[in-house]
């Protein structure tokens, strides 16, 4: 059953539509990422779920209860911000216990829960430190503990790793996922980083210009993009333009060479202009079969014009 339901959500500002007809159902314990470029409406959607923005139309239901017009402090939704947003005047322990203190929980319960949370984020000894005495990664872990301490129904993360350096980003990413799995908490994660979304999520919602482009598992999003935007935004692609030769077989002719798609081409007719997008990692280069495939024919060494080292792989390009 759906735990969090976002129904036909719209948010219009004076001149722009930030969120247009967003529809999403999230099951209990699911990890869903909202992925898209800056200004695609992902953060606005998250802020509407948190209650910081009110939608122009549409509804949000949490565990069957309509929370669309409920103020943020009555939603029981945990939020982690890009800028950590720890309270500078409070120690780590006070930060983590803030929500419980506001809820007037007994001091002994607060102490126990704070310890539990600090153990969860593997910082049990830092309770007495102030935020400014911590590294960025530690601060964000404390922010996560603070959001989780109140036992929220949903955890919202707004680009939580964007301000951190690459190494910390990867390790904290894994930590967030393992904590989320351990607690089984329903999580909405906003990011513009496709690698983050692909590696963390049960499902990804790709957004562009306020609209949902595609919702699917990381495998579906990466391998079966439904729109050209999703195809170009997620991963790297070689786009080759050609003409349809045989729609039923999925055959397309590009520069006199025929390639065959894995599926037939629906609604296509012979001679239609067609683009083929090929992920670079599925292309193998072979000296022996220079004439065999459309890609190999473009990759004779003498025609390579540029090569960019990208760490674990090398990106090469050629002249046509």
């Amino acid at each position, binding site marked *: 059953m759906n735990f969090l339901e976002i129904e036909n959500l719209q948010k219009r500002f004076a001149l722009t539509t930030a969120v247009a007809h967003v529809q999403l159902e999230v099951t209990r314990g699911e990890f869903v990422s909202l992925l898209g470029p800056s200004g695609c409406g992902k953060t606005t959607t998250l802020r509407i779920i948190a209650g910081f923005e009110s939608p122009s139309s549409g509804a949000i239901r949490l565990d069957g209860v309509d929370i669309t017009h409920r103020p943020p*402090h009555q939603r029981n*939704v945990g939020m982690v911000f890009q*800028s950590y947003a720890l309270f*500078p005047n409070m120690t780590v322990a006070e930060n983590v216990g803030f929500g419980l203190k*506001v809820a007037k929980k007994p001091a002994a319960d607060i102490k126990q829960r704070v310890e539990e949370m600090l153990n969860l984020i593997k910082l049990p000894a830092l309770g007495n430190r*102030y*935020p400014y005495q911590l590294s960025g990664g530690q601060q964000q872990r404390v922010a996560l503990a*603070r959001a989780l301490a109140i036992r929220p129904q949903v955890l919202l993360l707004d680009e939580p790793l964007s301000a951190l350096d690459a190494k910390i980003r990867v390790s904290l990413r894994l930590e967030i996922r393992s904590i989320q799995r351990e607690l089984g908490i329903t999580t909405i994660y906003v990011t513009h980083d496709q690698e983050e979304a692909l590696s963390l999520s049960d499902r990804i919602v790709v957004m562009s210009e306020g609209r949902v482009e595609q919702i699917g598992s990381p495998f579906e999003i990466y391998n079966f993009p439904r729109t050209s935007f999703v195809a170009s935004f997620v991963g790297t692609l070689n786009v080759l333009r050609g003409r349809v030769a045989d729609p039923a077989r999925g055959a397309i002719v590009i520069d006199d060479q025929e390639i065959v798609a894995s599926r037939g081409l629906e609604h296509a007719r012979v001679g239609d202009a067609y683009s083929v997008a090929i992920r670079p990692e599925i292309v193998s280069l072979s000296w022996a079969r220079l004439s065999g495939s459309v890609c190999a024919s473009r990759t004779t060494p003498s025609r390579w014009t540029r090569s960019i080292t990208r760490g674990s792989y090398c990106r090469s390009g050629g002249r046509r």
Partner: protein
Amino acid sequence: MKPRRLGAWLVIVFGVLYFFVPLLGTFEFSLRLLRGVYSVAAYRIVLADPRFAATVTYSTVLALATIVMGVALVVPTAYWIQLRLPRMRPVVEFITLLPLVIPAIVLVFGYLRIYNSSSALPLTGSARTTDLLLMFSYVTLALPYMYRAVDNGLRAIDVRTLTEAAQSLGAGWSTILLRVILPNVRVAVLSGAFLTFAIVIGEFTMASLLDRPAFGPYLQLIGANRAYEPAALSIISFAITWACMGLIQIFTRGVPGQVAGAH
């Protein structure tokens, strides 16, 4: 010595002379009550005068009330403008600057016209309500300093995100203001408070025209009738002001993540 460094030293020496020679002169003069010897007799006379203690106490109480009222007015206002009405900032800044542009004498005549004993709100009708009116007029006088100090403090923290973080943890507006915002602009509020104190303690025009027994009119009275005691009073006033500045320095030191407001 390099010419540039020499120039800098000359400026410093000139500044020190400019500020300290009159002060030293006043101090030296205040010690000359008894002919032929230096003594603190003038200070003794001033401090023994019951009106000194009464007026200083009156002005101190009024200053503290002004600070409480000013903080209660300015912190939520500046916070709300930063959070929800950033476009109103120039308008509010203009309003808070008005007391610097409009002379105190004009303000107080306005008060007397509006709140005199035959008006709809006769605040000048009794001593207590006149004290109240004087307190509100001091809030207005101190507004440019208090607002600027608090606004600078608020600009130094991420008001919006801290507010949202507190909201998501279940905090309502009063909790956010008292437990999150106010502690994080404490230093700025203190700066504003000490400046308010320094203004109120020596204010003359309003207290005099509203006929209240404040320290300012007492200072003027002594200045008009005595020779050496006014110099001693000046030095005492300086000491009070410097003590305020010293307190700002002490409170602004070593507080994590906090920035003092405008001085």
